[in-house]
């Protein structure tokens, strides 16, 4: 039985409800793992993207929003950025439904779109709420560049490009690899599962025909 029903209500099955808290926790734990490994990235949306790819845009949006909102108990300046996480969760879920995560070529296009949206939104939100200088490490870098005489906007774009593009690519790559290794039995439980199962079948048939 394939789960073919889609839409706001049909997306929230029992297993997706159970997986949302887990995804939020994954975001949180990987975020702190990245800190202990001292990697120059955030990678705090791997859980969100995983859920979004598996369970569609609405679940992705909710997970993204809640994940940052809960994080902002510790750092309230993060709260405005929950809008970005929400939008990215939605976009990734939507793209997954349109079969954008079934081949490596499409994956790269999806990654570029995600990174671009993330960059534009993060610049906008940071500018609206904090005049460009939020409390992340980026702000310090930006301040240094501005004081060194580099104009504000080019500096912002360069910094956000450097920080967002690799970050979003790796954040999407991990779920992509995990889903490739997931059993069909498990994929069936999610509303986007059939997309990946169909892609897998098509790939196997191609191999046979060769």
């Amino acid at each position, binding site marked *: 039985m394939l789960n073919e029903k889609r839409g706001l209500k049909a997306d*929230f099955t029992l297993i997706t409800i*159970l997986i949302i808290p887990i995804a939020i926790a994954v975001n949180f734990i990987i975020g702190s793992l990245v800190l202990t490994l001292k990697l120059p990235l955030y990678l705090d949306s791997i859980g969100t993207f995983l859920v979004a790819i598996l369970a569609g845009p609405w679940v992705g949006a909710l997970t993204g929003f809640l994940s940052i909102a809960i994080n902002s*108990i510790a750092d309230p300046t993060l709260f405005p950025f929950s809008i970005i996480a929400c939008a990215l969760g939605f976009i990734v879920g939507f793209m997954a439904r349109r079969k954008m995560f079934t081949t490596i070529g499409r994956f790269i296009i999806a990654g570029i779109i995600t990174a671009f949206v993330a960059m534009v939104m993060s610049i906008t939100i940071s500018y609206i709420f904090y005049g460009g200088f939020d409390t992340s490490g980026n702000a310090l870098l930006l301040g240094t560049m501005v004081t060194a005489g580099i104009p504000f906007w080019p500096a912002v774009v360069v910094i956000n490009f450097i920080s967002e593009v690799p970050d979003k690519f790796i954040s999407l790559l991990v779920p992509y690899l995990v889903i490739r290794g997931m059993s069909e039995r498990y994929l069936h439980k999610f509303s986007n599962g059939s997309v990946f199962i169909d892609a897998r079948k098509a790939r196997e048939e191609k191999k046979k025909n060769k």
Partner: protein
Amino acid sequence: MERKNQNIIKRWNPLTLLFLIILLAVFSVLYNYKVTLVIVMIMVITAMLAGEGHNFLKAWIKSIVVICAICFVLQSLFIPGQQVLWEFWVFQIKRESIGRAIILCSRILGVGSAILLGAKLIDMSSLMTVLEKKGISPSATYILLSTSNIIPQMSKKMNAIMEAQKSRGIETDSNLIVRAKAFFPAVVPLLLNSLVSAEERAITMEARAFSASCSKTKIRDVEDAKSDKIIRILLAVILLLGIGGKIWIVLK
């Protein structure tokens, strides 16, 4: 029965406390920094009355004050402006930037302290019980409640995975490339592991009729006294008056 032994603030219904927190946060966003300072004082007093004064202040200084300080320094140094107040080396502090920094920090201070106070005062599980009674779906309350339980569990799991991978020879404290290589072997087992545990949870919840559509009984009941209802109405009125007052000031 339990609640009679508790102090004056903790005896309140969690929903009433939530109303109070929202009221304080909204007021500090709407009005200027002087009001925010008063509100923060009110929060500290509330925390003390609830017997959480020490805890609250400790967490408050560690998180909110530090963030505000960082924010204030960055804003006042880098936001552009004309009127230079103070100058040293390559940095300039301008009147406009100080103004912006004060507004921003006052908001962060108000909202951040309110959230922190809420986290210290409100017992999440009883708040969720009350919200469920008011008609919010059990799925929503489950998501919020279980997140706070799962994080420490998963953090333990992550440590176990890291230890295991270290014993297999993965290095975690060398140069950047080596550290980056340690990332995938740590994360992939964590993700697969937690997906499997989600399935186990699903079976467990199903066995306890989580998605049954009939009405369910609760093992714990949260008292909603008449005084709570009156306080809530009062708080709502004050909130409306505050918003109205702000609109009036803006229009004037």
